[in-house]
């Protein structure tokens, strides 16, 4: 037992002292912060794109219909289009919108003149205004009175209608979703990142031929566990650094930008952007959710995260260690990596389906199957809290990871002494029954 501790120490220290660890520690939160704030920043800067548009209305139907907004200012010009163009050349305006004398039944010939091309957002804005006005005029012409029309109109704010679960606040559902996504993704990410480090570490000892020197003083199982635990500690350290730095950066950026500015950008950007850019919508929801995190069962979520992080890491780590022991080089490892990666990748792919319906059949079974449980169950915990499904998932995972560590240990102790050709699955199967 004493030498497990020595191995853990060494594995930990050599990795934490590396430059790459430092770089990753700093870069991680910056990237994380970027994912959160860049869409919001883009929204802020995009809306500051202030355009002054001259409208030449030959039809006389659009008086006072173009409302000034934060990004668009309209001036109605009662002049000839050539004069308007001349004014455009003098840079009095950013653009000129020509509305010809139109037939309401066949409105044609709207033209926008400018030196820069029109942004899709502004274009759809202009089109919407013209369309609404023409529709309104047509309705009036067909006999509907203006008052009737106004009374028919319903003001619907899409942004407030969310797919929240019944009886739950919209904001809390958002937060649960964000926490679920982020923590599940972290688990996935760390299992892959540090699992492959285990594999490489084992392979290094094997190809360096130091392994035989080591295992004449340490039991192979201790050596394997020491490595897995040591690297796991590195992963936790990295994660903690990220959390602390991310919080710091989040607070710093919030203070610099001013929280209200981000909120403003959100309120403005949401309507158009929600439809146009789902990624951006997600990111905005994420920043929304951070404020609403308090509505989740935080202690259960944190405990679940630590458990699934560790159990998932240990289970997959053991498998990666066994792969590293079985092969001599990185190329040969690919064949064995595949069956190990598939459940993990499947878990992350099915995540959106799981989060969309956290109590569905898919979500349930994927959180009972131990290979997908660390990712899928974690994503559900913020929604479900502590219930029997969580405990069942945990119980199955514990049994499975103990079994997996045992199996991996048996493959490991034989594999590390085998050199030469790549073993087949059948051979690895035989190793399980060798006497050690």
């Amino acid at each position: 037992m004493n030498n497990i501790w020595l191995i853990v120490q060494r594995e930990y220290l050599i990795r934490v002292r590396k430059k790459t660890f430092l770089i990753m520690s700093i870069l991680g939160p910056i990237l994380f912060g970027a994912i959160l704030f860049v869409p919001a920043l883009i929204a802020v800067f995009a809306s500051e794109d202030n355009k002054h548009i001259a409208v030449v209305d030959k039809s006389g139907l659009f008086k006072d219909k173009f409302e000034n907004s934060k990004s668009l200012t309209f001036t109605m010009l009662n002049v000839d289009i050539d004069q308007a163009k001349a004014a455009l050349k003098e840079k009095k305006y950013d653009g000129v919108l020509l509305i010809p004398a139109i037939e309401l039944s066949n409105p044609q010939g709207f033209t926008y003149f400018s030196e820069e091309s029109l942004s899709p957002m502004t274009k759809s804005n202009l089109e919407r205004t013209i369309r609404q006005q023409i529709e309104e005029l047509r309705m009036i012409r067909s006999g509907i009175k203006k008052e009737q029309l106004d009374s028919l109109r319903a003001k619907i704010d899409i942004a407030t209608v969310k797919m929240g679960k019944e009886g739950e606040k919209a904001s809390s559902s958002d937060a649960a979703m964000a926490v679920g996504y982020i923590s599940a993704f972290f688990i996935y990410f760390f299992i892959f990142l540090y699992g492959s480090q285990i594999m490489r570490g084992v392979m290094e000892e094997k190809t360096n031929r130091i392994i035989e020197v080591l295992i004449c003083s340490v039991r192979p199982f201790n050596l394997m566990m020491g490595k897995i635990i040591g690297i796991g500690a590195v992963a936790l350290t990295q994660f903690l650094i990220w959390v602390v730095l991310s919080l710091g950066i989040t607070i710093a950026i919030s203070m610099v930008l001013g929280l209200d500015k981000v909120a403003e950008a959100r309120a403005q950007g949401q309507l158009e952007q929600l439809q146009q850019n789902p990624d951006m919508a997600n990111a905005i929801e994420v920043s929304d959710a951070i404020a609403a995190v308090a509505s989740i069962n935080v202690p259960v979520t944190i405990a679940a995260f630590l458990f699934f992080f560790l159990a998932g890491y240990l289970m997959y780590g053991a498998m990666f260690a066994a792969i590293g022991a079985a092969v001599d080089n990185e190329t040969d490892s690919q064949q064995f990596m595949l069956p190990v990666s598939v459940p993990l990748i499947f878990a992350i792919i099915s995540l959106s389906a799981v989060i969309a319906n956290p109590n569905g059949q898919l979500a349930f079974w994927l959180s009972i199957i131990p290979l997908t449980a660390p990712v899928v169950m974690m994503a559900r915990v913020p929604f479900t809290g502590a219930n029997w499904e969580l405990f069942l998932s945990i119980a199955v995972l514990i049994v499975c990871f103990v079994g997996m560590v045992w199996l991996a240990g048996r493959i490991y102790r034989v594999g590390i002494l085998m050199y030469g050709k790549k073993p087949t699955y059948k051979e690895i199967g035989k190793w399980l029954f060798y006497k050690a």
Partner: protein
Amino acid sequence: MNILEANHLVKRYAEHTALQDVSIAVPQGQIYGLLGPNGAGKTSLIRIITQITAPDEGTVNFMNEPLSPVHHQQIGYLPEERGLYRKSKVGEQLMYLAQLRGMKEIEARRRIRAWLERLGLMDWADKNVEDLSKGMQQKVQFIATVVHQPLLIILDEPFSGFDPVNSNLIRDEILELRRQGSTIIFSTHRMDTVEELCDYVGLIHRSRKVLEGKKTDIKNAYKTHIFIVETDAPVAFTENGYEVLQSEQLEGAIYRHLIKIHAGTTNGLLQACMAQANIVSFREQIPDMHEIFIRVVAAHSN
């Protein structure tokens, strides 16, 4: 006393049997040569002694106790295929390995420094292993094997890859370790080192032990009773007891004869020669280990 006794070891792998009823006894304080052709089972036997694998049958006793993990600290093993962490510093690496074998940090530091100084590596303690030459790496590996002062040191082809200077250096260290009371098991097929260093030998061939004992006893047992006699005139025998196998004239009218004694004594042969010529030199042709090795292996290869 025997420091190590292996009794009736059997080790089977899927396709073949690596050890078939192998028993060896290694006396304490001696250098024991474990010989055998490639693939004979030497490495399998060593891996059982170092507890890297377990035998399918048979037992191993270390200092009259059944071999168990507590003995890890008393055994030092230098494998034939050996390496170090390339990206670790020499000193740190040795410290890690010493501590893994149960040494306390202070004691380990003292011993590592002493060894690095002894082998002229003190300036390299803070260098990464990959910056060292191959010869220096081998010295580091040797230090790693003996730093914890093991009672039993197992060296698998320790001289492979060493230049003659380092070979001599390591050989002297091995002899010094024996003088201090360590027991050494040598696995090799270089017979000159066996001839030079080993007190005892055991020969494994095709998974079985075919020969074991004190080197001098084995050599006596494999005596051919052939004598090299140099005289100042040719000699010949009419009696049946002595036979001249070969005769040649050397420079300066010296004649060298290979004479086999079929019946009779050494003194009888000497007298018979003296009657015919003046003796210049007279010595027994003792087989070297190389010859014995080849003869034994050939005899068991049918």
